[in-house]
Structure formats: C-alpha cells, structure tokens
C-alpha cells in the first residue's frame, strides 16, 4: 500500500483514532491516579468531545479508506466515510456524552467508583466498535466491530456486581451473543466461499449477474442478518433484551438502547443498501437486485418486532423492563423506514433516531434519578410522585408522551415522517398496523402517568430533590423535545442532507 494512500485513509479515520488514543489515555490515567478517580470522567468527556469535533468536521467529507484487492477495485475500501455514517456517529457520540453525565450521578456507578477507569475504558471500547460498525463495508470488519462492541458490553452488563441479576444478565447476554455471532460468521464464510470476496461493493457487482446459487447466497445473507438483528433486537432475536436491560446498570441499559441500536441500524441500512440495491430511481425508491424478497422479510420482521415489543410491555411492572420492551417496539417502527426502501424512508429513520435519542435517554435518566432515591423501579413505587416531585414526574410524563408519539412533542414528528413515508410508498396497511401498535403503546406509557398522578400512595413519600446539574441534564433533553415538536425543519433538513450512502 502506498504511503499517500495510508495517510489518506488515516485522515478519514480521525474520529476513530482520537477515540483509540483517548481509550489508552483513560487506561493510563486509571493506573496513575489511584486516589482521585474523578478526573477519569473528565478525561472521558474530553476524549468524547474531541471525537465529536472530528465527526462534525467530517460531515462534508466522503471517501473510502483502506482499499482492498487489486488496482481495478481500489476505489472500494473496507471503510466508507459519508454523511450517512457521520450522522449516526454523531448520534452515538452525543449519546455517549450524555451517558457520561448519567454515570456521574448514578448511584450504582458511584458504588463501584474504584473501578471507574475500567468502566470508561470498556465504554470507549463499545463506542469504538460502534463507530467502525457504522462505516464498515467489509464483512470481516463488520464482524470484528460487532464483536468489539459485544465483548465490551458483556462485561459492562454485569459490571457493578451489586445484584445477582447483574451477573445473570451478563452471562445470558454472552451466551446469546456467541450464538448469533457464530451464525453471522457462518454466513460470512459461506459468502466468501461463493464470491471470493468480503467487500460489500464487490459482492453487489457480482450478484448483478446471476451466476451464483441464489438460494445458498440468500441463506448466508439471512445468517448475517441474524447477527445484525440481534444487535438491534428485532424479533425473533430480541429475547435477550429485557433480561439484559433489567439486569444491567441503568446507564449501560440506556446506552445499549440508544447508541448500540443506532450502530446496529446504521450497519443494517448500509448492508442492505450497498449489497442489494442496483439503482435508485428518480422518485427516490431503491430498486433491489433480484436475490430474494428483502422487502417482505423486513416488513414481517418489523411487524413482529413492534407487536411483540408493545404487547409484552403492557403488563410490565418494572419500569426498566417496560422501557426495554418499548425499545424493542421502537426498533420495529424504525425498521418500517427501511421496509419502504426509499430515500424518504431513510430520511424518516434518521429523524426518528435523533428524536429517539432524546426521549429514550430522557426517560431512562428520570427513572435513574428516581431509583437513586427510592431504590426501586417498580411502578407501584411511583404512586403520587406527581405531587411529591412535580419536576421529575412532569419530565417523565413528557418523555413518555413523546415516546408514544403525541403532539406537540418531537416523538410525534418522528412517527409522522415515518408514516408519511409509508403512505407515499403505498404501504397504507403497514401504516395502519403501526398506528394500532402506537395505540397499544399509549396504554403502558400512560399507565405510568396514572400511577404518578392519580393513584394515592399508601405511605406519604418524601420529595425527591434533584441537584442542579441533574436538573440541567433533564432540561437539556426535555427542551429540544418541545422545540423539535413545533419547529422541526432544521432537523428534517439535517436528515435530508445525511442520506448519502457512498457507492450508489
């Protein structure tokens, strides 16, 4: 490889490089500063902000890094930098920054403060895995990044070791993860055996001329999908989600539900689009190469995912577990955007993710702040909270209403664009199913409101005081929900500008 090519590639990888350096610095600082571990959090924050800076810098950039193969294919690399990837990287970085703030005020994490360096190092490992997942266009790199993300999250899921459930979550997560990564690897090996390449672009050009055994190829693709489906917790690969989300420390749960899911979706979208799309027609619809019916598969899976998620959430009494199921349901909604197979659907997905980031993290944050004080996430312990702690209860109510998708919150805008995309693609039936699902979800979200405002508590509960920084953090998540609920044009414009996936 020429030197100029290398420096070009490394230039494109500045965010990842920054993050890796920050990871090393974290480990070093952890060794050096034995006594004052507070500094570690700030180092993590600075590392993330620097990474975020480079990600934002990259918004106008695009290109391939680390070209594989011979001269004629040099244009296609293992890593693709484009505005689509930058958007998701930004989502991940923003979520990570918020998670650092979460961790600063989480009681669970405070109890294990002597291992805080380890904690952040693992989180940074996760983030690194996500960033690579978002921009990887080579099956080997995809597999590696998924593993990097998974291995760190297995440990983090059982990190606090405070309760039995922690270890159970961690173990289950690992067993389940190994199964799906095994499946994925099997699929990758089949693809490599059939095509002789692991590069998605080359696979795309190879299947344009149908001389492969399409059946075996489809089977391999489904195995790979199983690996990705497990990351985004779509049915039937979602079973780990509630157990892990409930058992893991709440900061990790929140992180998994937003950042990890975002990375998984970015990978799925990129994988489907680069491998199977032959061209994009003038009205923005993606025309697939005839391999097998991806569209039906995604439609069926998304219906199953949201229905299972919503229906299971109905009777959950633990808020963390309820939010876990609700995040499964949201994965189902987001998949609808992919099922449309159009630029409009992709735009809707990006908008939804930006909104989902705010409202889901917000809901987890409030649940955490409450759990810090009353040491419970059970819905019965929320009785009368609306009167004893009006600020927290009102914020939680707004986050939940936004998750339901009612105006004037941003959640409404996310769903609106998704449904409009569905209707424009003549998939009205699917839109109706999604709408009915939303109605079901209203029940379990509003049930929390009922407990907070209408049910009288058995014993008088003391006011839950929030510290200034926490109040600010809640507001930081809360205010944009209203702003984007009313004035959402900037968000839409940003999403519209970020649907370019390089190569097509």
């Amino acid at each position: 490889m020429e030197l100029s090519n290398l420096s070009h590639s490394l230039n494109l990888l500045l965010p990842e490089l920054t993050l890796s350096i920050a990871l090393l610095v974290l480990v070093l600082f952890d060794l050096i500063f034995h006594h004052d571990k507070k500094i570690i959090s700030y180092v993590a924050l600075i590392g993330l902000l620097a990474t975020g800076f480079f990600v934002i810098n990259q918004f106008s950039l695009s290109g391939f890094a680390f070209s594989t193969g011979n001269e004629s294919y040099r244009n296609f690399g293992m890593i693709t930098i484009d505005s689509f990837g930058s958007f998701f990287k930004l989502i991940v970085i923003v979520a990570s920054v918020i998670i650092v703030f979460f961790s600063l005020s989480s009681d669970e994490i405070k109890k294990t403060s002597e291992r805080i360096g380890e904690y952040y190092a693992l989180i940074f490992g996760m983030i690194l895995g996500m960033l690579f997942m978002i921009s990887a266009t080579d099956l080997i790199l995809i597999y590696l990044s998924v593993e990097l993300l998974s291995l760190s999250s297995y440990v983090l899921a059982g990190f606090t070791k405070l309760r039995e459930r922690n270890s159970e979550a961690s173990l289950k997560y690992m067993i389940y993860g190994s199964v799906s990564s095994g499946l994925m690897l099997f699929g990758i090996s089949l693809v490599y055996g059939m095509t002789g390449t692991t590069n998605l672009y080359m696979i795309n050009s190879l299947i344009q001329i149908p001389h492969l055994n399409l059946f075996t190829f489809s089977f391999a693709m489904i195995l790979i999908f199983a690996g990705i489906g497990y990351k985004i917790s779509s049915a039937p690969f979602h079973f780990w989600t509630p157990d892990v989300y409930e058992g893991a420390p709440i900061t990790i749960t929140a992180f998994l539900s937003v950042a990890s899911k975002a990375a998984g979706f970015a990978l799925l979208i990129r994988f489907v689009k680069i491998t199977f799309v032959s061209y994009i027609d003038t009205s923005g619809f993606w025309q697939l190469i005839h391999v097998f019916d991806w569209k039906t598969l995604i439609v069926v899976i998304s219906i199953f995912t949201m229905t299972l998620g919503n229906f299971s959430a109905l009777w959950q009494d633990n808020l963390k577990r309820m939010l876990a199921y609700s995040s499964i349901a949201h994965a189902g909604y987001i998949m609808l955007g992919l099922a449309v197979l159009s630029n409009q659907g992709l735009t809707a997905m990006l908008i939804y993710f930006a909104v989902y980031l705010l409202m889901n993290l917000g809901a987890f944050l409030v649940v955490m702040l409450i759990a810090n004080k009353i040491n419970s996430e059970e819905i019965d312990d929320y009785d009368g909270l609306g009167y004893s702690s009006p600020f927290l209860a009102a914020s939680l109510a707004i986050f939940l209403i936004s998750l339901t998708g009612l105006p004037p919150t941003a959640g409404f805008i996310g769903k609106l664009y998704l449904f409009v995309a569905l209707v424009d693609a003549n998939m009205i039936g699917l839109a109706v199913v999604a709408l009915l699902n939303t109605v079901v979800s209203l029940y379990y979200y509003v049930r929390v409101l009922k407990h907070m405002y209408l049910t009288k508590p058995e014993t008088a509960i003391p006011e839950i005081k929030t510290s200034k920084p926490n109040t600010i953090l809640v507001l930081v998540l809360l205010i944009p929900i209203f702003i984007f609920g009313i004035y959402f044009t900037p968000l839409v414009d940003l999403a519209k500008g970020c649907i370019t996936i390089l190569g097509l």
Partner: protein
Amino acid sequence: MINFIYLTILLPLIGFLINGLFGSKIKNEKVIGIIGSAAVGLAFLVSLGAFFQTLGLPVEQRSNTVELFTWLNVAGLNIKFGYLVDQLSLVMSLIVTGVGFLIHVYSIGYMHGDKGYWRFFSYLNLFIFTMMNLVLGDNFLVLFLGWEGVGLCSYLLIGFWYDKRFEKGTVAQAAKKAFIVNRIGDFGFLLGMFLIYSTFDSLNFSEVFSKVQHFPVSETTFSLIAIFLFIGATGKSAQIPLYVWLPDAMAGPTPVSALIHAATMVTAGVYMVSRASIIFASAPAVMTIVAIIGLLTALFAATMGLVQNDIKKVLAYSTISQLGYMFLAAGVGAFSASIFHVMTHAFFKALLFLGAGSVIHAMHEQQDIQNYGGLKKYMPVTYLTFLTAALAISGFPGFSGFFSKDEILWYAFSNGNFIFWFIGVFTALLTAFYMFRLVSLTFYGEERFKHTQQHASEGRGEFENVPHPHESPKVMTVPLIILGILSVIGGFIGIPALFSGEGGNNFESWLEPIFKPAEEKLAYTGMYTHAQEILLMTISVAVALAGIYAAYYIYTKKPDIAGTMAKKFKGIYTLLFNKYYVDEFYEAAVVQPIQKGAEKILWKFTDTFIIDGIVNGAAKLIDKISGTIRKMQTGVAQFYAVIMMVGIAAVLLWLILGI
C-alpha cells in the same frame, strides 16, 4: 424597520416570558408593570418605524413579506413563518400596539394591589404576542395560530378573577362560555381553511388571492369558503348568532375589556374578512349575508344597550353594535371604511372602557349606573374624556366616530340600498341615546351612591367605609387624555373627499391597493352626487343630536320620565332588559339538547355500550395475547436460542417455498 418587524412579535413574547416565569419572584409591582408596558411600547415604536418606512416607498412596493423560517414542510404542505407588512397589517399593528401600550400603562394603576399582578401583565403580553401574529401573519395558518392564541388569552383574562362570582354563576363560567362559543366559530374558520387548501393548494395569502382571481372555481365553492370564514368571524367578533359571549366577557378586569373585548381582538373577524376581501367579493351572495348580519347585530345590540344598568354591559352591547357597523361596511364592499371604523372605534371604545374602569375604581367596584350620578365634579378628567368618547361614538360632527360612521352609512346607501341606510341611521339614534343615558346617569344629576353604597354587596371591594369618590391617579388619567385626543382628531386622516377636495380620502387611498382587486370585482357603479351625500350626512347628524338631547333631557332634566316610559312599555322593556331571551333560548335549544343527547345517547349508549364494549373487548383480547407472548420470555437462555433457530428455519422454509 420593516425587516425588524419580527421585534413587534418577539418583544411581547419576551415580556410574557420574563413576567410569566419570574413574575412571582419580582416583588415590585412597578418593575413588572414597566417590563410589560415597555415590551409593548417598543413594539409600537417598531411598528411606527415600519409604517413611516412603508409610507416613504412607492405605492407598488408597499407590500413586503418578512420570512423568518420554514415551519412545516410535510407531504406538499409548505408553511413558512412569514410576516406580511403592508398597508392593512400596519394599520392593525399600530392600533394593537398603540392602544395596547396605553392600556398596559393604565393597568399599572388599575391593577395596583392585585395578588395576580404579574400574572395579569404576562397574560396581557401574551395577548399582544398572539394578536400580532394574527394581524401580521402572511398565511392563513399563522393567522389561525394567532386567532386561537387570542382566544386562549381572552379566556385566561376573562377568568382572571376566577374565584369571584359573576351574575348568576362564576367568573370561570363566563370565561368558559366565551371560549366554547368561540370554538364554534373557530370550527367554521378551520373548515374554511381546509377548503381553501384543497381548492388552491396553498394557504399563503398572496398565492391564494392571486389564484382566486385566475382559477376557474365555481361560485358555490367561493360561497362555501366565504361563509365558513364568516362563521369564524361571527364567533370572534361577536355577531349574530354567536355574540352571546361578549356581554359575559365583562367579568374580566376592565383593562381587559378595553383591550381585548373592545379595541383589538373582537376586530380580528373584521380584519380577516377584509384581508380575504377578494374571496368575499367573489361570493356576492355571502356579501349580502355579511351586510345583513352586521346590520341586524348593530340594531339588536343597540336596543339591548338601551336598558342595561351595568356600566360595562352597556359598553359591551355598544361594542357588538359597532362591530355590526363594521361588518355592514364590509358587506357592502366598503372594506376601507370598515377598517377606518375599526381604528376610530379602538380609540373611543378603549377610552370608554378605561373611563368606566376609572369610575368603577372610584366607586369601589360598584358597576350599577343607578347607583352613580353627579360624578362630574369629583372626577373632571374622567368626565371630560368620557364625554369626548361618547360624542365620538354618537357621531357628533368633527369627532372621529362621525367620519367613520358616516362613511359606512354613505356606502350602505350608495353600494347597498335605502333600507340599509335607514336602519343604520336608526341604530345611530339609539347609539347616541344609550351613550348619553350612560353619561347622564353617571356624571350628571343627583348623587345616588351615598344612599345605596351601604347596601352594595356585589363586587370584590369593602363597602363599609367608602371614601369620597376621587379622581384616578396620573398613570390612569394620562392614557385617558391621550385616547381622548385621538378620539377627537383620529378621524381627520379619513376625511371624505367631500370636505378635503382634491386629495380625496387619505385613509382610503392608503388602503386602496389592498382592496383594489375586490373592488374591481364588485364594480359598484352607483352614481350619486355630493348633494345627496350632504343631505344624508345632515340627517344623520340631526339624528345623533336628537338622540343626545333626548337622553340628556330624560335622564338629567326629568328623571321621572324614564320610569313612566319603562312602565308604559313594560313588555318591550322586559324583553330588552332580558336581552330578547337569547341566552335562555340557546340554553333551551342548544345547550340542554346537547347535554341530554350527550347523556342519553352519546354517554349511556354510544360510550358505555358500544365504545366501552369494543375497548374492553379489545383490551381483553390484547390481554390474552400479551399473556401468551409474555410466557415466551421464560428467562431460560437455551429456550431463547431455540426460538432464534426456529425463526431462521422459518425464513429458510419461506425461501424454499418462494424460490
């Protein structure tokens, strides 16, 4: 300044936020009042700047749009947050911010000592904010946003003393009545907007109005749009049949009555009809309806005003009546005359209300004019300004109301017919009469309050030790004086061509570009001479003077005539006193059936039986399904892996069958 027009909207919003968020912590009333007033005062200065800048532009460049940002862009619907600065919106914004500022200042004194002082000012600022959106918006949606916003503020401010009693009910009930009646109108407006969008594929004023002139659209569609819009206007501007809320709106503090329920908000309907003049001009049948509704409202409200004893109620009916005049003008195609009357009415009616507020203040919340009398010597400033306003509204020559009302009457005759003019003049007679009945009973004659004040039990003040009536403080009288001056000279910018000669009517020529398309479409070609105009004018002046004198004679010189008259015409008197029993009729014909129907059919049958049945059934079904699904989540990792494999196998099977 045109490009900074958004400041006129932003400043009141900032005022609202400051007073609304931190008002309860600001202990100093002065600070709150000054913040609230300054926000509106500065907005007035910006409007004034924009006005002079526009005045300096050539006529064809006087309509400017200031676009702030794209608000909505979903599925073909593109709404920009844009503000239209043209001749019409400038007149309206000058009225809203100008009169609004004076009323804010007045409120500093009037609301002194109220426990909701900061709340009051934050609501007032919020009102100005939404009202400015209404008059400046460059599309129907922003207008509607303001329309709903002022409705909300009106509700909040009518119910400001929500814990007080008002007539037979409570203040909160009066507020609800206003809100609900307005909702009926809003629904019509909304339907009109939907129809406009589906017909013209846009909600932007300039786009819609240019399409109105060129699109091949049937007159039926135009009529439907116009009638729906007019239903909206009857709600907001208190016209038959939706006027019933305005008298009850007097439950709010008096500055609110002056600002919202006299000078600004209630004229929103007139503004909207004038703004959409081309749509109305395309539906001549609806124009006639508008004129007739306006005329009838003017007449009926004036008759009801004759016998009311509550000082604010008299003014409320007078407002409804004057609004009727404005719709009469719009209905006969004299849109600029209608806006002219909006302006002069804003001056003198705001003044009347503020004067009434000053009297009520002095009389310690006593509002019954039967308990006033002889206040002239105690409150000279209030008396003089009130008298000015009363002369203006009665159409005394030279005062502002004379010019605007006379223009309307003239157009009612020339574009309409003799009957329109005749009823208009008769209403003018009634107007002069009830206004001077009010003046006489309040300021002239014997002092009746000394004997009755001990019995007064209504209101919010203490009545045991009523001090001597006194003049209000400067902060209240100065706005009165300014409005008094405006009530006198305000008409001179619209002097008819008859008197000003060559220059023509300044006000009319200023607004002409806005209404030109509509006027061309209507093409009234009545040929009338100046002699006819002078004759009609002389008659209406004579009528006004007769009304004034009759009231003065009956209520000051021979107070016993009033009693005998009331006894003689007992039937009519009772009918008028009970406001033609319209409230009772609505209660029996609309409210009761709806309540009964809602209870018997909607609740007992539809809701409990059908909807609850479906909902509970669905819930049970979902419960069952979710119970089953839930059991799949066993917590056993091996089982999860099995399901996953089954899933993959199912897809595989589908592949085999499919390919």
